[in-house]
């Protein structure tokens, strides 16, 4: 099945493989998180490297180690943005009465802004 990643023109196959592996890995971490108490410990799994695990293995197979390492370098910036996003969300949930779903979804714009801002700073353009 994974050989499809190397085939020229295997784009749709590649996307489908990523979709199913990504869905499975992310769901697995979410279920593991559900199993633990207290809530703060279960919450750790909300920042598990689930998308990264699903992606990096496939990327190593299709594009090699160096390509995956470049992705990981940028993932570091994305992780810093995630830390800032989650810190802000925690404070907003503690201090205000805004709707939880609305705050967390709208906050992804903050994640995107910080991640791209850090990327521009790191790449100097």
């Amino acid at each position: 099945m994974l050989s499809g990643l190397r085939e020229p023109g295997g784009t749709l196959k590649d996307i489908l493989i990523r979709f199913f592996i990504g869905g499975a890995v992310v769901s697995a971490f979410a279920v593991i998180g559900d199993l633990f108490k207290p809530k703060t410990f279960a919450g750790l799994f909300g920042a598990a490297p689930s998308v990264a695990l699903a992606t990096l293995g496939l990327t190593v197979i299709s594009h090699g180690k160096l390509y995956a390492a470049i992705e990981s370098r940028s993932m570091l910036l994305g992780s810093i943005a995630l830390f800032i996003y989650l810190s802000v969300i925690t404070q907003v949930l503690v201090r205000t009465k805004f709707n939880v779903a609305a705050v967390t979804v709208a906050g992804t714009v903050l994640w995107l802004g910080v991640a791209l801002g850090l990327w521009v700073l790191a790449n100097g353009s």
Partner: protein
Amino acid sequence: MLVKLNISALSETRWYQYLVRFLLGGLITAGAGIIAKKFGPSIGGLFLAFPAIFPASVTLVEKHERERKEDRGLEGKQRARDAAAADAAGATMGSIGLIVFAVVIWKLLPVHAPWSVISGGTLVWAAVSSLVWFGWKRDWFLRYGEQVLASKRKAPRGPDNQKDLAAKL
């Protein structure tokens, strides 16, 4: 015991909630691949840390907590909100582990066997996240902060401060 297993929590989640998580996880993983293909791995890599299912998970935590309280005839809105905030605080600590995970993969992947680096990085994520959580639970950071503040308060006043004081007088 600090951490407990709660198997019954699995029965509280409906099938469509599992499906939503699967779809969101699949979409962001496929999306990250498409972005990397179109804009290069440098931009695509950012999305490996996208908060893909966090909004869905935290909303689910809030819903379950509210239903649990309302089943007992209690007003569960504030309690549900507190549970959501606790989940977000946990994820914040987990993201510190994710930062270390990214550094491990970035630095070690080019020079070591990929599968051992990726599995080792996952263990490092679990260890760092748990350690940060444990330290937070045991007030390590608060105590450290207090010690730093106390040592600053005890520090003798420098000549500049004395000059400032003299000028004010």
